[in-house]
């Protein structure tokens, strides 16, 4: 068969195409971030960070929103983390493929694809109506915990399964028990992947609106940054403050990402 394109030419075309795609994607992402920071950073100053919002958010800062966002997210992650990572270790280390693990995996996959407003509705009915927790950080945190659980389970399980089988074998051969092997040989190697899943979940919690508006509410002093932002834009209250809020959201997620990775490098994944 006669070649129509020389291999060298094909190589160049492929390389060119891949580079173009990558640069386009990175370019778009950076453009969005730069645009938001460009519009938002001028609004941010000390009083914007430390003062409560006034007149529907047209004046004052967003201090209450920052605190609500951080507490709802922290609560959600702290609740979901032990359950999610525990389930992942159960699935990856303690069971073989059977009907129970298949049910858990199938549920986790299905739950990951459900729109967040459905979680909001569930949270509203279960935590507010049935348990009577009211519009609160607690209701929101619990709802978000359920929402991010599937993500944490899936990413943690993948990270655990990616750890070389050799490490487990070595640990057992040196007289390690199952739990010692998981704790000392598997977990430190999986921790980076597990953390990535958690950071992803933090991002989703911080940015969530639908599930939060139904469980924490949208009272001016009791709303997360994402909801504050949503209200400022939808009600046409103040585009400037909306951009300021968005900029702080971006900076916050960036900051969490960097700090989490630094802590892991420093304490757990050293030498890896």
């Amino acid at each position, binding site marked *: 068969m006669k070649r129509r394109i020389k291999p060298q030419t094909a190589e160049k075309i492929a390389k060119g195409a891949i580079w173009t795609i990558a640069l386009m994607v990175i370019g778009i992402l950076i453009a969005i971030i730069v645009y938001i920071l460009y519009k938002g950073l001028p609004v941010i100053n000390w009083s914007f960070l430390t003062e409560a919002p006034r007149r529907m958010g047209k004046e004052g800062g967003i201090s209450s929103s920052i605190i609500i966002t951080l507490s709802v997210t922290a609560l959600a992650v702290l609740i979901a983390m032990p359950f999610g990572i525990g389930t992942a270790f159960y699935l990856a280390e303690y069971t*073989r493929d059977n009907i129970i693990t298949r049910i858990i995996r199938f549920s986790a996959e299905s739950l990951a694809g459900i729109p967040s407003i459905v979680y909001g509705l569930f949270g509203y009915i279960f935590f507010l109506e049935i348990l009577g927790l009211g519009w609160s950080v607690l209701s929101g945190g619990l709802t978000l915990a359920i929402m991010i659980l599937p993500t944490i389970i899936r990413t943690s399980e993948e990270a655990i399964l990616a750890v070389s089988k*050799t*490490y*487990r*074998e*070595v*640990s*057992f*051969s*040196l*007289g*390690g*028990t199952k739990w*010692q092997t998981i704790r*000392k*040989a598997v977990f*430190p*190697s999986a921790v980076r992947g597990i953390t990535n899943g958690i950071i992803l979940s933090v991002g989703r919690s911080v940015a969530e609106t639908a599930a939060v508006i139904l469980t924490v509410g949208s009272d001016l002093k009791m709303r997360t940054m994402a909801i504050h932002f949503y209200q400022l834009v939808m009600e046409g209250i103040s585009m400037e403050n909306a951009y300021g809020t968005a900029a702080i959201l971006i900076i916050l997620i960036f900051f969490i990402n960097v700090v989490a990775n630094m802590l892991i490098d420093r304490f757990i994944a*050293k*030498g*890896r």
Partner: protein
Amino acid sequence: MQNKIEIKNLNFFYNEKQVIRNFNLNIPANKILSVFGPAGSGVTTLLRSLNRLCDLSPEARSEGEILLDGKDIRSPDINVTELRRRVGIVFDVPTPLPMSIFDNIAYGPRLKRKKKDGKISETVELALRQAALWDEVKDRLTVPAMSLSGGQQQRLCVARVLALKPEVILLDRPCSGLDPISTAKIEDSLTELKKQFTIIISPHNTQQAGRISDRVAFMLMGELIEESTNVEVFKNPKDQRTSDYITGRFG
């Protein structure tokens, strides 16, 4: 001559496939025994059943007796983690854990119980000296073990087993990926170590078996063909198949 391990009528299966057949062998203490044979003869399975590392495969099944100091290691009341400390294993490829040199060697001792770090560092130094690695790494014990060369990594794995203070050391083709100089270093330390330990090695070629072993066992298709002293097997093999293999007629 005292027997450290006695294997009686061992049969070993992976699912329906039988990899070891009616295997009987006495392994003397403080000697180096080479078990060799072509790939797929069951040598690795044999070594791994001596510390029940085979149990990790769910499809593995075995029959017969393996007596360590007269007690069957397959009996239900045996503590498997304790057994694996008594019978350490070095794998065919270097398997450093992703941590520092020191932490690799200290891994086993630390699993046992909390000791003061002073005591552990003595254990680590002794193990590294016995494995002839101390002089090369003593100034950089905190660097990742992965940064060592292949030969150093394999000696690290030997040291890691020695730090357990085992009674028996199993080596499964420990020099298969190593250069001649690293191989020589490992062989030298083994000759030194047999004073304290019982060593069972699957050599990566018959020359190595000839150089270091006291006794030699030849396996084929899961069966023990013959076992005798080093000289006996290589000079006057009793079985035609052994002689065919060591003269290179097949293998």
